[in-house]
């Protein structure tokens, strides 16, 4: 079984090497075959491991001793338990579908660049697998860094465009800021617990008192890392800009997998967070605030991918809210369903963009349901799922989180419900402006509109199916007793937390009320948006007032520019002109000048006057006499 475990990351790594090194020699079909084939292989093995875990057998595979310093030992070890096997399936499954999609979407690229794309994509999957399979925080961090790198490589895939490069740099730098927090947390952990291993850290932390300062510190630092990777306040502004990359990349990295790394990390460390309620509170508040903020911005965006990007940030906020109120299963459930419907929505958007010849502004679309039937149906299903309409998947997962929030604090629930209403509104605004109403594009574009080929539509259909039925893995108590299969499956991972945070479950009447209210309000929102935007006409009016603020993303980027960029630049200019030129150069050049001056003065001794030479001789002999005779 251990060997199978090693194969899971090694296959994508092999794909990366082959496609990367052979990019000048391999043909496009062959590159596609290798790129998709290795992911399919990993998926099959992940299935085998999943069934193994389901039958109750966890695997711990120790490859080699990675670091050994004194008493500290960090092995390169993989851990397959319910949580990681679930993530493995999501990553390899959705990843495979996106790889297949990319073979048709990236068809127009030249051969070396086509191969480069697939090699980067494989490297990304490899890093993400390392991240979720690691048995200690260090291996997780290696994968963490790897996905950050691949994000940079893939966002800047069309590297000839400076703006795309800037977006890639922005993503990488903001990730890095978060990574610093993660790294500090690891150091602290090693210093305090003597190990970074999950099992050891959790067993040692388990006996600590609640809200211990060290635990709070470590968990907060870990959360900083999560805000960077999973685009929460204050490190979220890179994600909308990351839409500069190809759409399948946005689907895989910035919707389904990389951004969920933060959720995985906190879910894995659930015991630490349960023991530090302060950090949990912080997580919940930050998640909720991000969810609302991103939702408000999405209301006024006109680029199809930007709407989806802000939607991703908002949904991630919900997942963190779930983690923050102790609904670990709910958060992981939402990760799963979100992977399905968000990947579906992004791939659908890609199909639309492909048909519209790279037009991304929804004000210039409309009525596309006529020409893109499959894309239209799957996109609609995705929108229904994300809005939270039963019986689609989003409804179950979102409701679980919101109910847990209500138990913690009703205010959280009401704010979260507001966010959900906004989600429904802007998603159906997007849907209606794209697929309903009259076509608002040019005649040229209308001519070329046609449904996308099979490699694009097949993954859409598969994902739509998953988005529809995915919710049935987590049916809550009120519908059927003991039907929450996911909770059952993940219970060993969260057992320690649930034990400590025992609480009275909500009475069924309250739950039914909340459910009914939310469904009714969401449906109303959906209907309102559908009607309003099916009749949308592009009058070319500029946004004003509050709408302008939302359209300009609350001016957060400008704020960061003012408080971070400009001072940093001023400091570096200062350091260059003053410290570097005057002080450091001054000292170094000063040495030279002093030596020069000294030698010039010393040269004057060589006057050529014999008289002065003799004087010096006499003085020297006097000095010698003094030293010899009197100072012994």
């Amino acid at each position, binding site marked *: 079984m251990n060997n199978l475990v090693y194969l899971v990351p090694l296959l994508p790594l092999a794909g990366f090497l082959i496609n990367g090194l052979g990019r000048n020699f391999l043909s496009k079909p062959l590159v596609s075959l290798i790129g998709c084939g290795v992911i399919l292989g990993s998926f099959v093995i992940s299935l085998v491991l999943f069934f193994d875990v389901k039958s109750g057998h966890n695997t711990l595979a120790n490859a080699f001793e990675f670091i050994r310093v004194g008493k500290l030992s960090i092995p390169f070890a993989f851990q397959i338990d319910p949580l990681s096997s679930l993530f493995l399936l999501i990553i390899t499954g959705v990843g495979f579908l996106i790889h297949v999609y990319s073979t048709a979407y990236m068809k127009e690229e030249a051969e070396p660049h086509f191969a480069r794309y697939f090699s980067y994509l494989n490297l990304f999957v490899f890093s993400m697998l390392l991240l979720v399979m690691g048995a200690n925080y260090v291996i997780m961090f290696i994968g963490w860094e790897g996905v950050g790198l691949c994000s940079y490589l893939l966002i800047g895939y069309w590297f000839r465009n400076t703006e795309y490069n800037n977006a890639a740099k922005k993503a990488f730098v903001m990730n890095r800021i978060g990574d610093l927090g993660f790294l500090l947390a690891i150091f602290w952990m090693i210093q305090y617990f003597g190990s970074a291993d999950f099992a050891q850290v959790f067993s040692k932390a388990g006996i600590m008192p609640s809200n211990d300062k060290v635990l709070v510190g470590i968990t907060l630092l870990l959360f900083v890392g999560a805000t960077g990777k999973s685009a929460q306040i204050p490190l979220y502004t890179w994600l909308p800009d990351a839409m500069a990359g190809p759409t399948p990349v946005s689907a895989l990295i910035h919707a389904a997998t990389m951004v969920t790394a933060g959720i995985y990390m906190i879910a894995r460390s659930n015991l630490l967070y349960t023991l530090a309620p302060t950090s949990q509170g912080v997580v919940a508040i930050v998640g909720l605030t991000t969810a609302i903020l991103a939702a408000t911005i999405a209301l006024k965006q006109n680029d199809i991918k930007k709407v989806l990007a802000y939607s991703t940030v908002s949904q991630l906020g919900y997942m963190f809210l779930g983690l923050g109120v102790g609904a670990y299963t709910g958060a992981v459930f939402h990760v799963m369903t979100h992977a399905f419907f968000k990947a579906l929505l992004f791939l659908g958007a890609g199909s639309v963009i492909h048909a519209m010849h790279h037009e991304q502004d929804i004000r210039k679309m409309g009525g596309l349901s006529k020409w893109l039937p499959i894309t239209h149906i799957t996109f609609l299903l995705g929108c229904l799922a994300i809005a939270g309409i039963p019986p689609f998947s989003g409804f179950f997962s979102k409701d679980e989180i919101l109910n847990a929030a209500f138990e913690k604090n009703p205010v959280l629930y009401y704010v979260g419900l507001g966010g959900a209403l906004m989600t429904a509104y802007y998603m159906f605004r997007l849907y209606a402006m794209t697929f309903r109403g009259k076509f608002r594009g040019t005649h040229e574009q209308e001519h070329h509109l046609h449904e996308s080929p099979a490699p694009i539509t097949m993954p859409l259909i598969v994902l739509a199916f998953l988005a529809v039925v995915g919710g049935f893995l987590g049916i809550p108590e009120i519908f059927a007793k003991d039907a929450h299969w996911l909770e059952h499956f993940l219970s060993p991972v969260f057992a320690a937390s649930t034990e400590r945070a025992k609480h009275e479950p909500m009475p069924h009447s309250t739950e039914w009320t909340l459910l009914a209210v939310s469904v009714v309000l969401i449906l109303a929102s959906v209907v309102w948006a559908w009607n309003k935007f099916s009749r949308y006409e592009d009058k070319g009016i500029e946004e004003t007032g509050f709408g302008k603020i939302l359209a300009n993303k609350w001016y957060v980027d400008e704020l960061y520019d003012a408080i971070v960029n400009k001072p940093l630049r001023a400091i570096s200019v200062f350091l260059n002109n003053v410290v570097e030129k005057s002080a450091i150069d001054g000292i170094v050049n000063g040495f030279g000048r002093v030596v020069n001056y000294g030698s010039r003065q010393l040269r004057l001794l060589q*006057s*050529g*006057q*014999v*008289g002065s030479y*003799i004087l010096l001789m006499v003085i020297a002999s006097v000095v010698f006499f003094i030293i010899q005779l009197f100072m012994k």
Partner: protein
Amino acid sequence: MPINYYIFLAVALFCIGVVGVLTRRNAIIIFMCIELMLNAVNLLLIAFSKMHHLSALALDAQTKAGTEAQLFVFFIMVVAAAEVSVGLAIIVMMYRNIHSVDVNFLNRLKH
């Protein structure tokens, strides 16, 4: 006379010669002061020779203990004579070239 007095006398003469060398600019005067220094040393040597002779006499009445010092003085005079002749020849040549005996003009070492 304790040897001390002779030592002080010789040291004083020697230092007067040194001051003369450092203070004067005339090459010939400087040369003369060198001769003065040499003489101071000669005096001291002879004084020492007599001192040794005196202390050796106490042990052996027929001793010839201090003779070497006086012969040394003899040879110093020999060398001084040779040195003076050559030195004055050099000074005469210097005078022929720059028509002055001022040592400050001899600063070709600077270049």
